[in-house]
């Protein structure tokens, strides 16, 4: 499979679908590189279907999800799926690595799991493998503002990612150019206060939003969530991990980077 430069501008295949309480979008630029007709469409459908499967497994809004069943005491963690065990294991690692600023437990109900701060990025990262497996090289997957890209969008060498203005969802505040890699942002503007500092249980408010750029979306998103919860020390905290950069937008609308 040929990977890399694109000599001609290819009309992209684009599709979007509501999932996980937000919208997932896939843009694929190597449509003409796939010999079998419909491969791109079927692969993108598989991406959406897998996101829906993972949502059904993890959603705290669904009574029949594994997380809801664990919270009601109907399912023991060791008996849960490999996916749930992997996520909870990673959440525990993040909790330790951030001295408790990241927590997969609700601040108002410490025995109730809510790993949603980790699941979206992890799920998007995981399902993006279907695009690679199909031999696609130039694509962008965006799940509710968390993004993983491969290759190039045809006309440019890199994907140009606009980071939304936390004070105005219709405007862009900063631009990040990236080829292979991930960009994830945490904040409280779009859906109200839904991120907390696990050390205190209080809402995280130090920054308006915090963006992390890194090699894979699982940890890029997890670090954005954790750094946002850490607040003032969050940018430095991200810096310790090789390959990851952080950028915050302050309440004064200033852009601060590591």
């Amino acid at each position, binding site marked *: 499979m040929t990977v890399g430069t694109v000599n001609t501008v290819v009309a992209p295949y*684009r599709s979007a679908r509501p999932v996980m309480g*937000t919208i997932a979008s896939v843009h694929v630029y190597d449509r003409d590189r796939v010999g079998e007709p419909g491969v791109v469409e079927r692969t993108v459908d598989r991406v959406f279907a897998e996101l829906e499967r993972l949502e059904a497994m993890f959603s705290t809004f669904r009574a029949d999800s594994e997380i809801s069943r664990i919270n009601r005491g109907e399912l023991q963690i060791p008996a849960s799926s490999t996916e749930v065990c992997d996520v909870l294991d990673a959440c525990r690692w993040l909790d330790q690595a951030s001295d408790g600023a990241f927590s997969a437990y609700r601040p108002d109900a410490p025995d109730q799991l809510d790993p949603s701060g980790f699941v979206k990025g992890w799920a998007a990262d995981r399902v993006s493998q279907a695009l690679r497996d199909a031999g696609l090289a130039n694509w962008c997957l965006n799940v509710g503002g*968390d993004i993983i890209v491969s290759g190039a969008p045809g006309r*440019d060498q890199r994907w140009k*990612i*606009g*980071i939304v203005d936390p004070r105005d969802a219709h405007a862009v505040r900063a631009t990040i150019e990236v080829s292979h*890699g991930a960009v994830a942002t945490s904040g409280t503007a779009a859906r109200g206060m839904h991120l907390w500092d696990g050390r205190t249980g209080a809402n995280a408010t130090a920054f308006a939003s915090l963006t992390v*750029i890194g090699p894979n979306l699982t940890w890029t998103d997890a670090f954005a969530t954790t750094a946002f919860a850490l607040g003032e020390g969050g940018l430095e905290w991200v810096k310790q991990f090789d390959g990851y*950069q952080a950028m915050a937008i302050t309440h004064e609308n200033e852009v601060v980077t590591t």
Partner: protein
Amino acid sequence: MVALAALGGAFLRSLDQSANTVRLSARALPSHFGNGATATTLAPPPDTSNGTGGDTATVPAPTTTVAAPPTGCGNANSVDGPVIDTRWGPVQVRAKIGDGNRVCSADAIQTPNDHDRSVFINQQAVPWIDDEVKTQGVNFDSIGGDTITSDAYRESVQAILDGRAK
């Protein structure tokens, strides 16, 4: 404009290492739900990336620029998208694009006939806008940010990008 090109070299170099550190960490982690062997030094993240780390060694350095703030909708241009068949039926959207790529409004101007579906599409329409938008300043491939709701999406820049061409 604030260019951060200086970050690039370090970022590129560190990425070469990160694929390895991410992989190694899965072994370093304590097993699932044991007695919590607390690491005294910070271990790298466990590998739940489903094997995606392999691509990272070729990651070029990202650059970050700060865009000028938008100046509003005073000069907004109206753009009609083509009629597109979606899973909900045919959809056409009219968007107004202002300065700074601001999406001033996005309205479904054609909705499916079926009543229940038309209610749904009006609430969660996926706008489809043609390439004209590109010439009017939507110069992004994708929009990152704090998770937007399905409702907010239909008026978002990302919605325009998703529908720009097909």
